[in-house]
């Protein structure tokens, strides 16, 4: 306040310039698109020509759109895979943390799906799920099980996609869990051993609480990513599956916006989805706050 020499004025201007850059970036790449999307959601627009303002009509229509809710339901169903995937990857991480032969090779193998192209993976699984020639059914046939035509069945198409999602996410969660497990102080385990704790007790009272931040992070990010699942669905079931049973929210939005050129309506649904994700994420943070504890 008191200092206002010429030197400091120059510094002030520089500071403003530096502050302006990210603010400008924010306005240009975040605030403007969001504002534009909000406006678009209140118009009738085919994505090409003039926009026609129609207020909240798109939102009203959305509540009566059975396919929107069906696709929402499907998306929620896909999230069943998240807890299963986390449990599996934690188990794997514990396994990979032991001195077993070929450990680093195994770690790599589990990580390969994470870095592979999503489209390639989707096509691979599409073949694997083929009712007649698919790997999955040939495998089941060894055990005398006559597998369904997975992706063409209203009952099996969703579980099939969940299995694929779990498989794909395993390596990523495993690596994070592995890092978390390795950073648990050895002293805690040693103290527990002195008190006569067995393996299960050590896992339940030390490992599990200590990796909780990672679990939280994974749940939040995977719920957000899961809400936006699209590529796998679009490639594996390009029509949204039998009776629209595999269509995800984003798939439905994309179909409205691009296939039917109903950009305004698609945007309204996208905003609705964004709001729902925001609410779910806030709830998760809230729950986590209540559960978290500080290690003294």
């Amino acid at each position: 306040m008191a200092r206002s020499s010429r030197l400091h004025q120059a510094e002030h201007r520089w500071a403003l310039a530096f502050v302006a850059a990210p603010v400008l970036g924010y306005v240009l790449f975040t605030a403007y698109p969001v504002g534009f999307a909000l406006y678009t959601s209140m118009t009738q627009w085919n994505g090409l020509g003039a926009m026609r303002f129609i207020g909240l009509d798109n939102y009203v229509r959305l509540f009566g759109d059975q396919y929107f809710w069906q696709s929402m339901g499907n998306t929620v169903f896909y999230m069943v895979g998240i807890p299963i995937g986390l449990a599996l990857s934690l188990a794997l991480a514990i396994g990979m943390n032991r001195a077993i032969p070929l450990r680093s090779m195994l770690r790599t193998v589990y990580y390969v799906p994470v870095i592979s192209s999503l489209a390639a993976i989707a096509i691979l699984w599409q073949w694997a799920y083929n009712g007649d020639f698919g790997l999955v059914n040939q495998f089941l046939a060894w055990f005398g099980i006559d597998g369904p035509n997975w992706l063409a069945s209203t009952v099996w198409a969703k579980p099939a996609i969940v299995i694929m999602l779990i498989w794909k996410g395993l390596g990523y969660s495993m690596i994070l869990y592995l890092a978390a497990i390795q950073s648990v102080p050895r002293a805690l385990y040693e103290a527990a051993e002195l008190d006569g704790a067995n393996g299960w007790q050590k896992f339940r009272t030390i490992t599990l609480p200590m990796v909780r931040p990672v679990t939280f992070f994974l749940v939040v990010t995977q719920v957000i990513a899961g809400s936006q699942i699209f590529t796998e669905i679009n490639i594996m079931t390009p029509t949204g599956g039998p009776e629209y049973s595999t269509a995800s929210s984003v798939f439905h939005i994309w179909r409205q916006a691009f296939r039917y050129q109903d950009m305004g309506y698609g945007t309204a649904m996208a905003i609705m989805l964004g709001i729902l994700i925001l609410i779910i994420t806030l709830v998760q943070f809230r729950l986590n706050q209540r559960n978290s504890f500080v290690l003294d």
Partner: protein
Amino acid sequence: MRKSRLASGMVAALVLAGTAACSAGSSTDDDGKLTFMFRGGEDEKAAYQEAIDRFSADTGVEVEVIVTDADQYATKLQAAISGNNVPDVFYIEQASLQSYVTSGVLLDITDLVAESGVDLENIWEYGVDSYRYDGRLQGTPDGALYGLPKDVGPFALGYNKTMLEEEGIDLPDQDEPLTWDEWLDIMEQVTKDTNGDGKIDQWGTGLNVQWNLQALAWSNGADWTNADKTEVTVDTPEMAEALQYIADMTTVEEVTPSSEQQATLDTYQRWMEGELAFFPVGPWDVSTYNELDFEYDLIPYPAGATGEPATWIGSLGIGVSATTAMPEEATELVTYLSADATAQQTLVDAGIQVPNLKDMAAEWAAEEDVQPANRQEFLDIVEDYGRPMPAAVTYGAAWYDEMWTNIQPVLDGKQTAAEYLAEVQPRMQQLLDESNMQAEQAAAANETE
């Protein structure tokens, strides 16, 4: 202190770099170069590149090519248009034509094409008329021209000649369509266990309802809408009969692989393995099917109550952007790709399409020792009895897609076709009403702008 200033400096640099890259991307082409955006596989891309190179050599107009995969094309084109980065020349789908026209994206090229001296009489009427639009109906002969056909795709029926010969069945006539009963009779004869393992391994056919109901419905006197595309007419006995016929093939007559095995890939694969007697053949299939180790040929689709065969023709068009800086050159490229004899020959030789030009097509059909021998059937479809897909000439396709979404119970024999059609008609009608309304409003909004 120093460190954080460095960091924010870097952020600023990144932001500026991002902005710069962005504005560079959206600059319009004033450099005398045409941009041409299309879609296709590797073969198609190579054939088109060859044709375009010759165009550039002949006219001195440089063409920058943007090519995408088929399933990304519509999305990318729309994104380019929203970003004011419209290619000068691009493919248009029949089904999108109306919204592109009402939104002022496509140039009316009626006069430019007339001036160019292209003989439209020598191009399939169906192909040319698909890109005519009079502001209310598409496909009418007196509408303004918004593009020329890239190709026409007649969807014919093929049969496995080798199989029928082995089974001692008379080959179906090329000109006189089978009746539905005759067709079924042949399919029943071929459906059997050929290697004695107790499992059926040879079938009559395996049709995907979404691509084959049209042929059966139309030939039975049914249609999806009335003539001016305002009423959905799928709830007729004729439509129900056609849909039931397809469903019964699987559930009652059992002349197809079972319903669970009927995902498209499977029957396509089975046809190629020589396990099916009848299967659709499009011009785009020919180069693949000619590699198979059995002989096949084309026949008209079997005829329903009208006694006349029917089927659909796909088509893609090539149009010009309304904002292009070089309308003459752009139109020249369109006419070149669609109607130039040398360019057509290049594309036909690549085995990816039927000739657009009638005289060239006549020669092509008369060629000896080619597969399928009855190439003429493709031309008959284009010239005489093929029709556009029901959704190809309406403003949106949501109403049409609605028909397929919940159709599985019918195909599984759990619901009758008549019941289902009565149930789905009001839903389709509502969606068609909505899209017709949107078409009017979009047109009105653009007029007032």
